[in-house]
């Protein structure tokens, strides 16, 4: 055994006789001070905040949501107001126009080559500003982009919440009762999961007229499976735990145990899944609109805006850029938030 007793630093504390008395801290030592101080949710929030991409995502979600509800009212145009006199005008923003950007010019490809024109001057509209430009019917793209974002957000959030409720209940019930109930419910789920999403959506559109409700139903029908799987898995993990057994012994009913004992404990993974299903919903809505099965005119969503912009995207690319950027940012941000949340709730990485 090596002997390294009293390896002392020079400037260390030199003990005096007064130090050698018992502290008698019998009373304090029962207090568990190291681990109990941080609550679970506090730690989750701390881990979430440490992840820069997640915070970035959250900020963008908030910014886009803000503009989706406030943006359409920020100028005098409305989402459906047409002005055929002022169609296909390039973006022009006051003050910034003096920098040469967003001053209303655009490049037009002709047979003789590319030329730069500014329709605001050609049409003698010195005091007209379309911040993101105007479309083929002379509608303001700024207003339409944000009102489209609003529609897309409402659809996505509504769909996510509805499929959370349905999928969660299904999964919780299936997992809690187990046995035959679980067997039957899982076979049904397997069959439902075996039908391609595309087919469900297409068939639904045969039955219902395109519109917000139809899209929400379509999203609900396709997304609940994933949610119910997660809820079931969590339920199987939790239902054998003491607190559940305890309340069962006390005579609590099944529904009480499922929804007020277990549900609060699985809220983390459920929220994460909701966050993941929002971008999927936005995407599906956009896809439906793109193939002409989305929100009926004159209302618009990000998908229908992209679909409209597509028709002129080689001649007036500025018309398709704002909805595309907003949608990509929105989906990206929700994914980042969901990713961050998942890691914050369940840190997989061992650090020692």
């Amino acid at each position, binding site marked *: 055994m*090596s002997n390294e007793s009293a390896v002392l630093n020079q400037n260390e504390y030199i003990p005096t006789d007064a130090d050698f008395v018992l502290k008698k801290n019998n009373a304090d*030592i029962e207090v568990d001070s190291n*681990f109990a101080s941080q609550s679970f949710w506090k730690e989750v929030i701390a881990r979430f905040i440490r992840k820069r991409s997640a915070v970035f995502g959250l900020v963008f979600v908030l910014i886009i949501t803000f503009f989706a509800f406030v943006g359409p009212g920020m100028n005098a145009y409305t989402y459906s107001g047409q002005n055929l006199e002022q169609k296909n005008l390039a973006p022009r923003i006051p003050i910034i126009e003096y920098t040469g950007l967003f001053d209303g010019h655009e490049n037009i490809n002709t047979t003789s080559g590319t030329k730069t024109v500014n329709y605001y001057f050609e049409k003698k509209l010195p005091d007209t500003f379309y911040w993101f430009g105007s479309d083929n019917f002379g509608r303001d793209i700024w207003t339409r982009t944000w009102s489209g974002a609003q529609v897309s957000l409402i659809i996505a959030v509504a769909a996510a919440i509805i499929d959370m409720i349905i999928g969660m209940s299904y999964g919780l019930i299936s997992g809690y009762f187990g046995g035959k109930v679980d067997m039957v419910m899982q076979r049904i789920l397997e069959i439902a999961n075996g039908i391609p999403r595309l087919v469900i959506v297409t068939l639904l559109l045969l039955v219902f007229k395109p519109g917000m409700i139809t899209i929400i139903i379509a999203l609900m029908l396709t997304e609940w499976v994933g949610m119910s799987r997660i809820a079931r898995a969590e339920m199987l993990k939790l239902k054998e735990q003491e607190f559940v057994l305890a309340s069962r012994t006390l005579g609590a009913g099944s529904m009480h145990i499922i929804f007020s004992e277990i549900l609060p404990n699985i809220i983390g993974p459920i929220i994460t899944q909701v966050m993941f299903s929002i971008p999927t919903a936005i995407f599906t809505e956009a896809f439906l609109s793109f193939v002409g099965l989305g929100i009926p005119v004159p209302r618009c969503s990000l998908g229908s805006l992209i679909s409209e912009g597509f028709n002129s995207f080689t001649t007036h690319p500025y018309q398709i850029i704002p909805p595309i950027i907003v949608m990509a940012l929105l989906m990206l941000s929700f994914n980042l938030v969901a990713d961050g949340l998942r890691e914050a709730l369940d840190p997989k990485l061992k650090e020692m």
Partner: protein
Amino acid sequence: MSTEKKKEKILDIKNLDITFDTTAGKVHAIRGINIDLYQGETVAIVGESGSGKSVTMRAAMGILAKNATINSGEIIYRYRDNKGGIDYDPDLDKDAQWKETDILKMDKAWIRKHINGRRMAMVFQDPMTSLDPTMTIGKQIMEGMIWHYKIDKKDAWNRSVKLLEEVGIEDAEKRMKQYPHQLSGGMRQRIVIAIALSCNPDLLICDEPTTALDVNIQAKILELIKKIQKERNIAVIYITHDLGVVAKVADYVNVMYAGKIVEVGNINEIFYDPRHPYTWGLLSAMPDLDTDEPRLYTIPGSPPNLLHEKEGDAFAPRNAYALEIDDKKEPPMFEITETHKAATWLLDPRAPKVEMPAELKARIDRMKKEAENNGSKL
């Protein structure tokens, strides 16, 4: 243990100090520890989870996580330079030339080639997760032999079968072709031990080898390791929180707390004459059938969070016998006998005389009497 041969020191960890860079901040996991180990001996490292037991041994095997920084220290490993074979040779030490190296100074490739598996092998805590689920048992045992000793597959197969029989597995030929999920936990741990032995190591590190197993199998596994240790004259390090295991197997005990060794001694010194209040706590917390006490003693509080280092003695906040000085200055190692040392200010001549708790005293007396009756080591 054979005493006629001169025992060589094979591992000497000096003043090891390790920090981990985690997302929560720097964690000072190992704070200057010293451990040494001689051929054929068994040393136990005891402590609560998070005290740094496993980290120390991973450092010795060069398999620390990437975010670890070694601030200081040496891990001197001594080995016979002329020892080459895959077979255990009882006359090995006759004309051995001993060579030593600081593992911390060597690169990963060297450690892999010369140390891991071949000279130091490890048995992990949970046999359910420590075998590759997609590879047959046979392949997992043969892998190391073929890699280190370049023997052919047929030879490796035969040796593996023999090894499986040696660790007490029936139907060895059949087991070779099976996958881990087809075997029970106890069997898997035997296989992990067979893997560890496959390359004829000098040192076996057992990281809580029986924690995940039920009591019956625990005893069998410990017996197995003991038997193999005797036959092959290998040194064993046990990492455990279970003093019951320690009592059964160890020659020397290192008690670890918050990344430091707080008491070290041979088995009799630690069990019959413990000096550190933490060791008192651990001994009192051991389940005992003979006690009249209605409830099991536990050490109050929980292990310190090494993110926030505390001035003075890390154990002081949980210590009923803490002195004023404990909050100001870390206690040095006080030597009690040549082999027995403890880091507590209670051993300072200026400290008030403090006896261990009366209950523990009674318990130790009982253990002593029992040991005399049984004629066992303890």
